[in-house]
C-alpha cells in the first residue's frame, strides 16, 4: 500500500467514525421518536429517512452540491461561519455521509426500540424514572443489539460510499480522497496491483464487520 492509499485509509476511517458518532447523536433520538410517536408527520419523515436506500447516490450528491454552493443558503452560511467554502471539503463529506447513512443507523434502532414493551416503560415511570432516566436505564440496555447493528451498518456503509463522495468531495488527496475513490483512480490508471490491495482490503473489512453483527445477533437472540 503506498503513502497516498494510506492517507486515504485514514481519511476513510475518520469520516466513518465521525459520521457514526454524529448519527448516534441525532439518529438515536430520531429513531426513538419514530418508534413511539403517533404524530402524523411521521409518514413524511420515515420516507425521507429511507430515501438514500433507493436513490442513486449521485442524486443526493447533486442536491448537496447545489446546497453547498456559496450562492445558496447553506453554503453561504458556512462561509459566514468559517470563512471558507464548504464544497469539496472533508466537512462536506461528513454532512453528506450523515444523510446518506442515516437509514442504516435509524432503521435497525427503530425496530429495536419498537420491540421494547410499553409495559416496561410504564413500570419504570411508576418506579419514579423520568423519561430520560428510563431511556438510559431500560431502553438502551434492552436495545443494545440494535445499537451495535446500527453503528456497524452506518460505519460500514460510510466506508463503502462512492457516488456521493465523488459529487461533493471531489478527489482531493489528503482531504477528500477516500478509499473507494482511490480504488477508482487506480483502476482508471490501470494500476491493478494497487487496486487489488484496496478492493481486497475493503472486502475483508466488510466481511469481518458483518460477521461481528451476525454473531452478536445470534448471541443475544436468546435474551
Amino acid at each position, binding site marked *: 500500500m503506498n503513502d497516498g492509499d494510506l492517507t486515504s485509509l485514514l481519511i476513510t476511517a475518520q469520516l466513518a467514525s465521525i459520521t457514526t458518532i454524529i448519527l448516534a447523536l441525532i439518529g438515536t433520538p430520531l429513531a426513538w421518536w419514530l418508534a413511539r410517536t403517533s404524530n402524523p408527520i411521521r409518514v413524511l419523515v420515515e420516507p425521507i429517512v429511507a430515501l438514500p436506500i433507493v436513490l442513486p447516490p449521485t442524486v443526493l450528491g447533486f442536491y448537496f452540491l447545489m446546497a453547498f454552493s456559496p450562492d445558496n443558503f447553506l453554503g453561504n452560511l458556512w462561509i459566514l461561519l468559517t470563512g471558507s467554502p464548504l464544497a469539496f471539503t472533508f466537512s462536506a463529506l461528513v454532512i453528506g455521509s450523515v444523510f446518506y447513512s442515516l437509514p442504516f443507523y435509524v432503521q435497525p434502532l427503530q425496530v429495536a426500540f419498537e420491540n421494547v414493551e410499553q*409495559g*416496561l416503560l410504564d*413500570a419504570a*415511570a*411508576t*418506579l*419514579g424514572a423520568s423519561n430520560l432516566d428510563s431511556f438510559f436505564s431500560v431502553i438502551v440496555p434492552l436495545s443494545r443489539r440494535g445499537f451495535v447493528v446500527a453503528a456497524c451498518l452506518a460505519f460500514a456503509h460510510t466506508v463503502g460510499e462512492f457516488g456521493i463522495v465523488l459529487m461533493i468531495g471531489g478527489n482531493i488527496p489528503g482531504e477528500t480522497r477516500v478509499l473507494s475513490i482511490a480504488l477508482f483512480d487506480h483502476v482508471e490508471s490501470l494500476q491493478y496491483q494497487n487496486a487489488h490491495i484496496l478492493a481486497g482490503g475493503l472486502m475483508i473489512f466488510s466481511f469481518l464487520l458483518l460477521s461481528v453483527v451476525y454473531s452478536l445477533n445470534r448471541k443475544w437472540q436468546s435474551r
Partner: protein
Amino acid sequence: MAIKMKHIEAIVKVQRASGFSLDLDIKIQHGDITALYGPSGSGKSSVLRMIAGLEPKMPGVKVKTDAETWADSHVFVPTHKRGIGFVFQQTQLFPHLNVLGNLQYALQRKHQQSDIELAQVKQWLGIDAIINKPIDELSGGELQRVSIARVLLNSPRALLMDEPLGALDQRARMRILPYIDHLHDRLDFPFLYVSHAIDEVTYLADQIYLLEDGRIHQSGTTFEIGNSLEMNAREGDAAAATIRCSMGSFDEQFNLTKLNFEGQSIYVTGDRRVVREPDQNILKLRIPARDVSLTLGRNANTSILNILQGTIDQIHQNSDGTSALVRIKVGEQFILSRITGKSLTNLQINTGSDVFIQIKSVGLLTEYDD
C-alpha cells in the same frame, strides 16, 4: 419530612367514540384496601391507569389527593412524579436485570424517605433464595412476589394493583394473597386493588366498588356487600361467604382444630394453631354456598360436623325459580347457602326464620387442596 397521603379521589366522566364510557367517582382512603371489582371490560384497569397517569391526558379525568391535584383540565402530573406504586398483572420486571437488580432499581428511585430495608422485604415476600436469579427463570408466583417487593422498596405514597394474581394458577394465587393482606397490616397509605375475582376481593378488601359498564353499581364495606346476594348471585358456583374466625383448640385424637365463630364452633381438619402469617389469631374462611345446606331442626344423625344456628336474612331466587341463594345471619356475620327451588318451597323459610346450617366442607381461604 414525608407527608402521608390520606386519600386519592378520581372523578371520571369520559365518553369515547367507540361507545365505551366511564362515569364514576371513587375515593381511596388510607389504611384500607379499596377494591375495584367488576367483569372484564367494565373499565377497572382504565380507571387505575388514569390514577397512575399512564393514560394520556384527556378531558373529563380528575384525579386529586388530599394535598395535590394530579389531573384536571389544566394540570397533568406525569407518572414518575405522582409517587405511586403500581403492581401489574404481567409484573413488568426488567428482563435485563436479575431479581436483585430489579429491587435495586426501585431502591435507587425511592418516592420518599423511608426506613424500609431490602433484608426486611426479602423476608416478608420469601425471595431470599431467588435473589440472584435471572427474571426468565422465575415461576409465575415468584415473578409476582418480586414485583411486589420491587414496589415496596420504592417506598410509594400509595399503592395500586391491577389484577396482580390474574396470570397465576389457583395454587399460586392462594399463596400470594396472604402476602398482600400482610402489607395492608403494615403499610398505611391509600391502597387500590383491581380484580375480577370475588374471592380475592372479599378476602382482602375493606371497601368495595362494584363496577359495571363504566359505572359504580354498588359500593360499601366488604361486610355490607362482599357477602351480598346481589354480588354473589352472578358468581354461580363461585358464590361463597367469607367469614372470620378466631383460633380455638386442637383435638389431637381426631386431628381437628376448633375455631370460634360468633360464639359457635367450626371444625377444620389438621392442626391450624400454627398458621402462616399475616395474622396469627384471626383466620379467614371461605365457605362455598353450594356446600351449605339448611334444616329446620338440629339433625343429630348426620355425618356433618359443622352445624351452626342462624337466622334467614335474605333470599334471592333465580329467574326460573329452580334454585335460590339464601343469606343467613350468624351473630354479626353471614353465611350463604345455595339450595334448590323445591327445597325452598318444602322448607317454607322466610326472612327471619331460624334455621340450622350444615356445612359440608370448610377450607381456609389461603389453602389449596392438591
